[in-house]
């Protein structure tokens, strides 16, 4: 009895061990899958949006920044997670013919100032020191929460900068500048202080690519509007307001972002394609060597939105072909690792949605969001040239008439004088 008991116990132990080993294999597999679902591995999103230029003629830089602000806010990052730095107040500038607005499109088609803009650092507060302090978190204790970047090692941070720059620097106001080395060191400090999980850096300035070439910290993806030696150019001249409203690169980025909604599956590779040289005049650049993941697996919403990994579906979901393995492995997984359970319970349902989504997209209607401006239409509408020409038949008839009158008057014998 004891023997059988011990035998059976040994068998169960063996079975458990077997199951365990099988389970661990299966678990690592599903863990990969789950990881892939949590491609970014982040739990919160932050954005630092900086316009470094003062003065009315730099209207476009403020509009640039506000357009990115508008996009990230629309995609779900709340004001508490956005640090917006604007070096000048264009909406209330006395030169603004349309007070309390900042337009990004000609003919006042898109007001990026919107109804509620929370500017955290304004006018002379926008300094290199303040910017670096925000990034590195070395801020006086009296600083209010809205002026802090309270990110952690699970945060995805979008840093957008625009202004006047040169090879290796970006000018702040009219008095100082930040160099690419300083910026790279600030990012390294952020990494060492575990202030970000992944970081997307976008800069729209002349010779913008020089700003990211010194980065050395991991998990940074960087985009710039122009290569070293190139100028970034302005766009959308508006005679009524009297200035250029946007810069080319950000203009097309905005156009691209307006098409994005929280459920979009657009990835970073699509963002790299924005504003080709034919549109931008400058050559936008990007850098991904520090980034761990393949850009094609990185959703735009990983940085531009604050997207929860939850999808509510109205239909019941059938598990697909490899579902049995998964199901069995789930059990083991649940049995074995409680720590993973937490992740899975959150992650699984939406994971299946995701699979479903990928397999037959027709099944699932993309969610509609209210008040989306057809920016693409606005941009691509061009005044049509209308040159009126008399119809061909009319001209032909006219010539025939002339020739007829000629022969009627002079007769055929005068032909020799003509030829």
């Amino acid at each position, binding site marked *: 009895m004891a023997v059988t008991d011990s035998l059976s116990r040994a068998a169960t132990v063996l079975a458990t061990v077997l199951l365990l080993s099988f389970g661990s294999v299966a678990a690592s597999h599903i863990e990969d899958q789950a990881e892939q679902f949590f491609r970014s591995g982040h739990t919160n999103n932050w954005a630092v949006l900086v316009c470094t230029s003062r003065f009315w003629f730099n209207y476009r830089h403020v509009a640039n920044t506000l357009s990115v602000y508008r996009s990230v806010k629309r995609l779900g990052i709340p004001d508490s997670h956005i640090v917006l730095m604007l070096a000048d107040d264009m909406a209330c500038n006395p030169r603004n013919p349309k007070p309390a607005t900042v337009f990004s499109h000609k003919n006042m088609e898109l007001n990026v100032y919107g109804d509620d803009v929370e500017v955290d650092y304004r006018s002379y507060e926008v300094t290199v020191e303040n910017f670096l302090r925000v990034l590195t978190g070395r801020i006086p204790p009296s600083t209010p929460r809205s002026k802090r970047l309270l990110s952690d090692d699970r945060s995805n941070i979008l840093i957008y900068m625009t202004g006047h720059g040169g090879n290796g620097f970006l000018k702040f106001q009219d008095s100082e500048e930040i160099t690419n080395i300083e910026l790279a060191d600030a990012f390294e400090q952020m990494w060492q202080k575990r202030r970000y999980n992944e970081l997307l850096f976008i800069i729209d300035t002349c010779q913008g690519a020089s700003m990211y070439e010194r980065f050395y910290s991991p998990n940074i993806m960087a985009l710039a509007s122009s290569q070293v030696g190139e100028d970034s150019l302005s766009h959308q001249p508006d*005679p009524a307001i*009297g200035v250029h409203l946007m810069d080319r690169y950000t203009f097309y980025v905005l156009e691209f972002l307006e098409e994005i909604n929280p459920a979009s599956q657009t990835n970073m590779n699509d963002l790299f394609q924005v504003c080709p040289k034919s549109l931008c005049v400058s050559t936008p650049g990007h850098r991904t060597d520090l980034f761990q993941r393949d850009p094609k697996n990185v959703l735009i919403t990983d940085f531009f939105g604050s997207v929860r990994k939850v999808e509510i579906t109205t239909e019941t979901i059938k598990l697909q072909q490899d579902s049995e393995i998964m199901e069995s492995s789930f059990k083991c997984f649940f049995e074995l690792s409680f720590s993973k359970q937490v992740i899975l319970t959150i992650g699984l349902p939406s994971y299946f949605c995701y699979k479903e989504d990928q397999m037959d997209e027709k099944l699932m209607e993309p969610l509609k969001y209210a008040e989306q401006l057809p920016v693409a239409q606005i941009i691509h509408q061009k005044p049509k040239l209308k040159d009126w020409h008399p119809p061909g038949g009319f001209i032909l008839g006219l010539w025939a008439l002339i020739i007829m009158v000629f022969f009627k008057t002079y007769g055929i014998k005068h032909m020799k004088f003509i030829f």
Partner: protein
Amino acid sequence: MGLLSDPVRRRALARLVLRLNAPLCVLSYVAGIAWFLALVFPPLTQRTYMSENAMGSTMVEEQFAGGDRARAFARDFAAHRKKSGALPVAWLERTMRSVGLEVYTQSFSRKLPFPDETHERYMVSGTNVYGILRAPRAASTESLVLTVPCGSDSTNSQAVGLLLALAAHFRGQIYWAKDIVFLVTEHDLLGTEAWLEAYHDVNVTGMQSSPLQGRAGAIQAAVALELSSDVVTSLDVAVEGLNGQLPNLDLLNLFQTFCQKGGLLCTLQGKLQPEDWTSLDGPLQGLQTLLLMVLRQASGRPHGSHGLFLRYRVEALTLRGINSFRQYKYDLVAVGKALEGMFRKLNHLLERLHQSFFLYLLPGLSRFVSIGLYMPAVGFLLLVLGLKALELWMQLHEAGMGLEEPGGAPGPSVPLPPSQAMGLALYVLPVLGQHVATQHFPVAEAEAVVLTLLAIYAAGLALPHNTHRPLSYRVVSTQAPDRGWMALKLVALIYLALQLGCIALTNFSLGFLLATTMVPTAALAKPHGPRTLYAALLVLTSPAATLLGSLFLWRELQEAPLSLAEGWQLFLAALAQGVLEHHTYGALLFPLLSLGLYPCWLLFWNVLFWK
């Protein structure tokens, strides 16, 4: 580096300078003139470009459409002016107030030092009217000025009309960040001077005026408008201001870009723009414009009421509507739109205009020569004086080595005080002695001043016979009879070089013009050789003769040549105007010539007649 400290090399260099002095001088002079002529060719003349970021493009919408309104205002203004015989102050005040400006007046009076025969005025009193358009959403710390100077004759009515119509239009816009002052002055430039002095709370010319009741912050830029017809064929722009000061080149660029945008025909010095700068025709046409600019700048007169703003470092220019026999005419709307565009762009300014050039020459409206490129021309001319002075110094040095003179020759310093005294007399006596002159001679005050001026000038020529006699004995007694005049010439050369150098730095045109004429004869002057020829040359290149010659050249370039009698009349008028402008506006040409260059020139005259 031991070129000058090594005695052997130094001697070699000295020999070189001594032996090759004449060819070097000729070469340097020719190089200077050639450099100046070369300024109009493309590598040296560059295309103008806008440097100021805030005014970067013409990308503003001009909405001015008040052409009828402007004409109606102009008609009313002309009628009221005819009725009252002076500036219709009450009407102007009423109208300005009706278009929504803050209106103020300023009365001023000025007694000229002697009657001004060109403008027919002596005891002047008048009233300036100005209206301020406050920027709706900005503090009144900066302002722009649109001014119309009204003279005693009935010109400029259309300019006043356009000013009022523009004021009405500007009042309706909300984008002004600077106050705009609409200023109508009486007695043209005198009124402007009175207003500017009161605005900046200074009194530099002895003008009596009431203080200003309303102010509008620091003036960033000003545009003066002169229009006397309902339609114009072209707009002429004047930049030369008091004492040859120029506005920042960006202001001219702004005007030029709006000319191009509005398709207006714009001229500089009354000359059209050459299209093609690659062939010879363009630069030759540019040379005419350039020479006209040099002559006008050298005169140091304010060519339009903008010229007085420049003293207060307010960038300003004058736009003159020209109505000639051309077919295509522009109405007031076109001019108004150009002005509106300029003001809207100036409104965008955040700092004073400072990005572009302040010192430049213009061979065309879209071409300029920067100071770095034109200064060598005058540098080469002044090098002649330096070379000549070096030669004299070495000769004196060699002579001095041979025989020591404990007493030395006091010669060179002797003619200096009398020459300076003559200059002082030339500066002071004409105005001071006009009443004495009118009592003793049957002439009017203005004539008296001019004739006294010429008389004293001519009297200076008689000086050598009186000054050199007492010292000639002493000088002759030494064994080097040449030392006296050589030393005097050395002093005179250095004196002249210093003066011309300083003038060229502040007013290149004047410096270059004087250097071109005075340098060769100054280098040639010596008491040997064909004295009569030298004397004739020296008289021909004296400052007064240069003025006369410039007048002929000026009219020649304007394609309105002068006859000799006309030229003489113009010369006399120019002398009177020169003295008057010194007293009324503070033009510096008259004191510069009388206190600086004339005494210096007398020194050369002394050298020539040294015994």
